[in-house]
């Protein structure tokens, strides 16, 4: 098979547990953790860049401050930010996912009924 256009599912089947009194707290926790993850990713990238530039002796601090993206640069940066939004707010979209939480709960209950003794 080709597999060129394979898209894996984004959301997990099953009821997402709620731990806090208000459901929005659970959602906010997810967003904060995703945000923390992306910040860490960004830090690693900047760190890698600084180390490489330092080793090669080519880091010009002024050039970095005065950086102006070309239209091509900007298109790539915009696409990256879109991907970032999808990742950051994945959980906000869970309710609208194909397999709704309600369906998933019914399936889980029916499986437990059928299979447990």
């Amino acid at each position, binding site marked *: *098979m*080709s*597999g*060129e256009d*394979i*898209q*894996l*599912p*984004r*959301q*997990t*089947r*099953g009821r*997402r*547990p709620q*731990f*806090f009194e208000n459901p929005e707290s*659970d959602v906010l*926790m*997810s967003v904060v*953790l*995703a945000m*923390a*993850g*992306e910040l*860490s*990713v960004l830090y*690693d*990238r900047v760190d*890698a860049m600084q180390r490489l530039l330092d080793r090669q002796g080519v880091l010009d601090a002024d050039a970095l401050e005065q950086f102006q993206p070309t239209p091509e640069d900007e298109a790539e940066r915009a696409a990256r930010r879109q991907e970032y939004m999808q*990742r950051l707010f*994945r*959980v906000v979209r869970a309710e609208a996912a194909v397999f709704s939480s309600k369906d998933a709960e019914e*399936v*889980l209950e*029916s*499986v*437990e009924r*059928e*299979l*447990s*003794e």
Partner: protein
Amino acid sequence: MPGELAHDLRIPRRLDEQARQDFVSSLRGFVLHDMANDLREVYHRDVLPEATRRLGHEPADSGEVHRALKSNLTFQLYSAMRVNAQEMVWDSVRAPVERNAAWINARVEEAARQAQGSLTLDPELELPRNVSALDVHLMPGNYDSEHGPGDASQGALYDNGTVVFFMGLLGPDQGDIGRSIARFMRARHPDLQPQKMLDLGCTLGHNTLPWAETFPEAEVHAIDVSAPVLRYAFARAESMGRPVHFRQMNATSLDYEDNSFDVVWSSMFLHELPLKDIRKVLREAHRVLRPGGLMLHMELPPNKALPAYDGFYLDWDSWYNSEPFYKTFRDQDPAALLAEAGFPADGFFEHVAPSVNWYGEDTFDQAVGEGAAVGKDTGRLAEGVSWYFFGARK
């Protein structure tokens, strides 16, 4: 940090993808060490006295500990962060798997053209509902989703995700559980020279291959109900030069002759099954083993071996990690299950094997000589990793 897989189906990760995976491993490390220690402390310091007053006795089992903790903020924060970290495991590997899916599927086809082992799928096999209707471990798509004909990408998702999940503790081939237990048995039983062995519920074959490596004379068979993971396992085993015969089959109904195997084993498998299926699997294992043959299962230790809090700590996955049968299994007495399946009662054994990857070869060899007991860290990812298993001779 998770590091890279050491086999030919390894897929390249971009800089940000690697950083994302590293972050999730770090987050899991924080939750499973720091927050888990906080939770234990808060439970014993604040929650236990209050619950004991209310109940008139100390919480006596995993369920009572769980109920006592539900309104506690440390439990809520620990659990919410652990669920999120679990979801982020799969999220962190999805993009590279999607990008490389075509390449992975081509490797499966290529392996089939020049195989030393074999792959036999059964498109007619009816998948059990505990696989087809759930996303076990919160992995979207589970083991069985196919995103096109011949697709193995859920296998790749599971392989790459479990490296992040285990924070690299299973070693670059993810074989630590199989390797630690196979070597433990070889050291303890020098007479063990199997000619034919069977792995049940093998998924990626990551715990199949270490048994093949430890007993290189044996013919190795491995089964699973899900085609995508079997395709991946087959290509992965071929790429590592380990011929294994993979077949799509349900362990509750084995298509093998009576008395045909010297060893039948599984790794982290039984706890995903409903109890009635566990009973069938054990009876089938008994049937296909030759007299004197060895059956063993690596598992989480049973609740009866642990204090109530430690039982609760392991049962967490049953409530929140889409593994609904995990607690029911851990509430069983393994010796009683094996006796029901026809194994002689005096042949039952249970051991705790130290992790080869964690301790290194020398310390491992020394520890195998001394033996170990089930403790609060057995089967969990903490300081000093060890693996519980039980079994019997037919």
